[in-house]
């Protein structure tokens, strides 16, 4: 997971952060801005991955940060602040999703959970999609679309582990599932996404997004 780790946002030194939190808990409330600053983007990203709407995600992110501020005294230093904060954001976003779409029932595949192995559908040579192509909106949209098509339980695990860079254990704690379930769902999410983005599968998204015969990268 070195690739993912290298792109992670710079976080404050753990010791400094613990000291900062202690001061906030002791009444220096204004320092909360400093504490939250490195995580603002991640809070939004977590909410957006679940709600998939900018306005809703921003609302949920704001609410999550406010909750973190109000309950900062309850934060215990055994946990990582980032995990605690992202967990609040995930809960907030999931609560909103339930409120907005109470009619949504989890797909059967979600409830079946981890039974059965996933068999990849595409075995053609993988043509690497370089990170630089993320500057193109259509590439980001295609990736977001693929992520959105995953079942909820897979998407949640993938978002926390691969986009928010929580550890397997932190992801398990945030979603209140076992680490074994995290690993199984993560495997399936990654393989499904790979298939969805695979150049060998008809290249439908290539021709749609970039015109026939044009490579997106």
């Amino acid at each position, binding site marked *: 997971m070195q690739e*993912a780790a290298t792109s992670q946002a710079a976080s404050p030194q753990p010791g400094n952060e613990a000291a900062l939190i202690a001061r906030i808990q002791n009444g220096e409330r204004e320092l909360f801005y400093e504490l939250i600053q490195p995580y603002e983007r991640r809070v939004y990203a977590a909410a957006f991955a679940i709600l998939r709407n900018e306005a809703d995600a921003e609302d949920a992110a704001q609410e999550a940060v406010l909750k973190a501020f109000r309950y900062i005294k309850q934060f215990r230093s055994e946990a990582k602040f980032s995990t605690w904060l992202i967990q609040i954001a995930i809960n907030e976003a999931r609560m909103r999703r339930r409120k907005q779409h109470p009619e949504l029932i989890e797909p059967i595949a979600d409830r079946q959970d981890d039974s059965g192995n996933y068999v990849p559908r595409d075995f053609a040579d993988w043509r690497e999609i370089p990170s630089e192509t993320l500057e193109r909106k259509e590439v980001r949209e295609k*990736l977001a679309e693929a992520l959105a098509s995953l079942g909820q339980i897979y998407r949640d695990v993938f978002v926390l582990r691969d986009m928010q860079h929580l550890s397997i254990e932190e992801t398990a704690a945030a979603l209140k599932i076992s680490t074994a379930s995290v690993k199984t769902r993560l*495997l399936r999410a*990654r*393989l499904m996404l790979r298939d969805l983005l695979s150049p060998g599968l008809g290249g439908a998204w290539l021709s749609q997004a970039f015109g026939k015969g044009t490579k997106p990268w």
Partner: protein
Amino acid sequence: MAEPGVRKGDETMVVSCEEVWREVSNYLEEDVRPELRAAMDEHFRGCKGCTSILEGTRNVVKLYGDESMVSVPLGYSYRLHRRLEEDMHPSRRTFFGWMVAAAASVLVVGGFEAARSSGRVPQLRSPHAQRASAVPPDMTVLIYPDGKVFHVAGCTYIPAEAHLRSVSAREAEREGYTPCVRCLKQYLTQNTFSGDTPNRAV
């Protein structure tokens, strides 16, 4: 539970494609035992399909893990801080509102004034006054509603009961005020005012 790919009696571990697919995610996490890792490496060397699975999965992890995958809306951080501020200091909400209203009023009034005074030379508030030209336009001066001249702070010609307002000399002149001959004497020219007679038109 049997370790994937373990074959009893085999000296080296061999893994099937299905076992590779099952473990590819853990492989990327570096969460497989060394023997299994070695067996998978060996498998990848001879299996193009599984190499495609590995490379594709690795690429997926890398792409989605990239910060630029998510673009934050413009002004997100500002709005977040403002909401925090409101939550931290509820009393400032009203104050903030008043400040916005006050700033808006100043802009509106200023706009009217600017429109009123632009494009023409303002009429002097005293028929006896003469225009000065050498007062630095950005100098802060004092005026009051019924006055005709502007002063610098501390001028003894300022009436005690005056409701003073501080403005720039440029603005004072725009409103038709002229410089006080006592406190702003150094900026006046000889032919503007005769002798040392102070302009007492206050």
